[in-house]
């Protein structure tokens, strides 16, 4: 149906690791049973910590909002993945390379998996909805980018603005070895993904959409194309109605049954289907990086510091498109995600629709348990993932893969001192890292400067453009952990920047403190001076007053004396008269 011939641009650099994807695509996506306890970290996204809406002891229903988008800035809401009781809100180790703890909500499930009345109202006729309404729904549902960046989708879509995006790029490349969650999603739920894309296109008023899928996933490409055909044919027919039954997978879990019951939504035909195109891109790591995929599909290189919508582009992951479908059409917040559990440390590698907060160990158990090769636990893929210390950690929104494997199979470069096969040798400046770098950096120069802690020079070599894809480390004949140096340099530079900001704030605060002290002193002195003045004035006034009073006293005394004198004289005169009178008698 599509007559467009999509030209592809060649990616620069890149590597061809062993992909190991077939291990986990042999079985359909399984719904897990409900784990007895879920550990839900509050910080699962880029942005501020969300505001807690529940307290210890609360009974929550499935889908109930546990924490809402922070009032101070961007973030994402967190919902209860199942019904149960909040038994604790405490610091627990979170899946982060530091192995540090973060606030987590601990939810003991009651096994009922009861939505209560928490389900959001389905917006099946989303094409009648205003963009604001859809954005609000996406925010409400806590949708974040599931490609790994976990940036709040609502913020990304809202900042793109309506009508600015000409080409919507949907990232289904999934270039990292071992991970197959997007592949399985596209194979099994292609129609839902397409509906999700249609929502995005409606919301953004995008003119066209390119779905980039690596050509090592022919089943996914076929599924997407056939979904496009079905939905598009319905669209062309005008009033054909198709059922988007997302819960066709009849698993034992409560989740599937209720999504089946609820998602029998009649989705109107997809009018935008002719403008959506599935493009097979050559298999090459890291073609799944958003900027790389954008270049492969459109030839546009998004420069540093430029937002892609200003170039008419926006990139979303297929998983995000699916979550948006669920949020809008099924009214289901982001409480579960598809996670690949794989590696030669796992008995039966496969994909699960896992509830957020499910401990890794629970998933491993569902996948048949460990083999004797379980030596390392990695969240994400082997190229960019992070090594984690324990399988008690929970699935978070970013967790696309749990890779448990032996050190040898991964060809890990972990510098075992006993291993002189893979000893770190000095850099021989062979330039292979530079050839592998998809962003045209000079990893070798950055490495020298990072090692010398000359961070200014590292920044001059555009460290901030590094996507930490690991291609340079992968090809290094000296086994130098280049990406670790870059991550170290990045975090260290950030820390230094924070320290610089703090020190300039401290300087300002101190200056203000000094100023305040000086002002207070000046004010005090002014006050004292005023008081003194007032006192003096009073004294002066008092002195004047005393003088006046004295006169009057004296006058009074005088007057009194005069009065007394006069009285005396009068008495004398009277006595004289009496005497005179008696004399006269």
């Amino acid at each position: 149906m599509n007559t467009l011939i999509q030209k592809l641009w060649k990616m620069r650099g890149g590597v061809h690791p062993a992909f190991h994807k077939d291990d986990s695509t042999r079985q359909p996506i399984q719904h897990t049973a409900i784990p007895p306890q879920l550990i839900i970290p509050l910080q699962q996204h880029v942005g501020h910590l969300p505001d807690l809406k529940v307290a210890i002891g609360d009974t929550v229903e499935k889908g109930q909002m546990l924490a809402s988008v922070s009032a101070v800035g961007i973030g994402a809401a967190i919902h209860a993945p199942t019904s149960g009781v909040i038994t604790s809100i405490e610091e627990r180790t979170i899946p982060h390379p530091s192995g540090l703890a973060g606030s987590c909500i601990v939810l003991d499930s009651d096994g009922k998996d009861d939505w209560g009345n928490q389900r959001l109202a389905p917006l099946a006729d989303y094409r009648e909805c205003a963009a604001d309404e859809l954005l609000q729904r996406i925010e409400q549902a806590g949708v974040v980018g599931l490609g790994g960046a976990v940036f709040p989708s609502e913020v990304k879509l809202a900042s793109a603005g309506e009508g600015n995006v000409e080409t919507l790029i949907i990232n289904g490349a999934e270039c990292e070895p071992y991970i197959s969650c997007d592949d399985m999603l596209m194979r099994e739920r292609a129609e839902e993904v397409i509906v999700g894309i249609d929502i995005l296109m409606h919301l953004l008023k995008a003119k066209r959409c390119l779905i980039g899928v690596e050509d090592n996933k022919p089943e996914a490409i076929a599924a997407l194309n056939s979904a496009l055909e079905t939905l598009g044919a319905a669209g062309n027919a005008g009033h054909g109605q198709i059922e988007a039954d997302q819960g066709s997978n009849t698993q034992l879990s409560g989740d599937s049954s209720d999504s089946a019951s609820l998602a029998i939504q009649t989705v109107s035909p997809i009018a935008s289907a002719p403008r959506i195109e599935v493009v097979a891109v050559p298999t090459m790591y890291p073609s799944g990086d958003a900027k790389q995929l954008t270049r492969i599909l459109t030839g546009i290189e998004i420069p540093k510091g430029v937002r892609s919508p200003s170039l008419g582009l926006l990139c979303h992951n297929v998983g995000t498109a699916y979550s948006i479908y669920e949020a809008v059409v099924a009214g289901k917040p982001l409480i579960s995600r598809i996670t690949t559990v794989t590696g030669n440390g796992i008995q039966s590698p496969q994909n699960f629709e896992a509830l957020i907060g499910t401990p890794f160990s629970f998933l491993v158990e569902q996948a048949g348990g460990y083999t004797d090769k379980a030596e390392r636990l990695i969240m994400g893929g082997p190229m960019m993932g992070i090594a984690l210390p324990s399988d008690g950690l929970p699935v978070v929104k970013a967790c696309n893969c749990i890779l448990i494997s032996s050190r040898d199979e991964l060809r890990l470069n972990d510098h075992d001192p006993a291993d002189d096969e893979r000893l770190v040798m000095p850099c021989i400046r062979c330039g292979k890292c530079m050839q592998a770098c998809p962003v045209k950096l000079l990893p070798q120069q950055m490495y020298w400067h990072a090692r010398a802690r000359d961070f200014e020079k590292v920044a001059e070599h555009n460290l901030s453009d590094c996507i930490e894809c690991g291609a340079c480390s992968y090809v290094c004949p000296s086994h130098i952990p280049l990406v670790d140096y870059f991550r170290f340099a990045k975090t260290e530079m950030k820390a230094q920047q924070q320290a610089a900001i703090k020190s300039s704030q401290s300087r300002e605060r101190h200056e203000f403190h000094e100023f305040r002290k000086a002002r207070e002193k000046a004010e005090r002195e002014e006050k004292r001076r005023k008081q003194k003045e007032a006192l003096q004035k009073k004294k002066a006034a008092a002195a004047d007053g005393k003088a006046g009073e004295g006169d009057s006293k004296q006058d009074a005394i005088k007057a009194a004396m005069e009065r007394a004198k006069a009285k005396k004289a009068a008495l004398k005169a009277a006595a004289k008269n009496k005497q005179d009178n008696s004399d006269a008698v």
Partner: protein
Amino acid sequence: MLMAILVMVGLAAFFGALLGYAAIKFKVEGDPITDQIDQLLPQTQCGQCSYPGCRPYAEAIAKGEIGINHCPPGGDSTIQALADLLDVEPLPLDEEAGEHSDVPLVAIIREETCIGCTLCIQACPVDAIVGAAKLMHTVIADECTGCELCLPPCPVDCIDMIPVPQSTDNWVWPEPATLGKIPIKIEVKA
């Protein structure tokens, strides 16, 4: 002979005039060296250098009144930076001034013990303690520079210095060379 003298004098006069002109033309305004020194100081305002704050210390260094090695919070890295700036030899930290701590510290008030005397509020050089008379005080951790100036005035010794708590925000990826030698986890004292 006379000619030679005249030429020399003439040259001297010419270059003298040139230098004089250059001195006026390219005069450096103000005294930015104090600002530059102040930029390098850690701004804890702790006064351990015997000057009341970082700026006075910077002024004193600029005037040559005191060495560059009297700032314990800055430690060796600040001394090195100052040495680079002023083109002098770096010196070891003056032990009399105090000891350098690699771990940044913040003050914390044991609130149940605080009697609300306001003495620490007055002592804080960056106004990072809030509270009122007879009411419990508290430290704004983000603003605290860890200068310890609030410790001596406290009549009930209810202020403790603790390392800045590690979080995922301020965590730094370990430098690869140190891997395997130093455990990544850092114990945070409660």
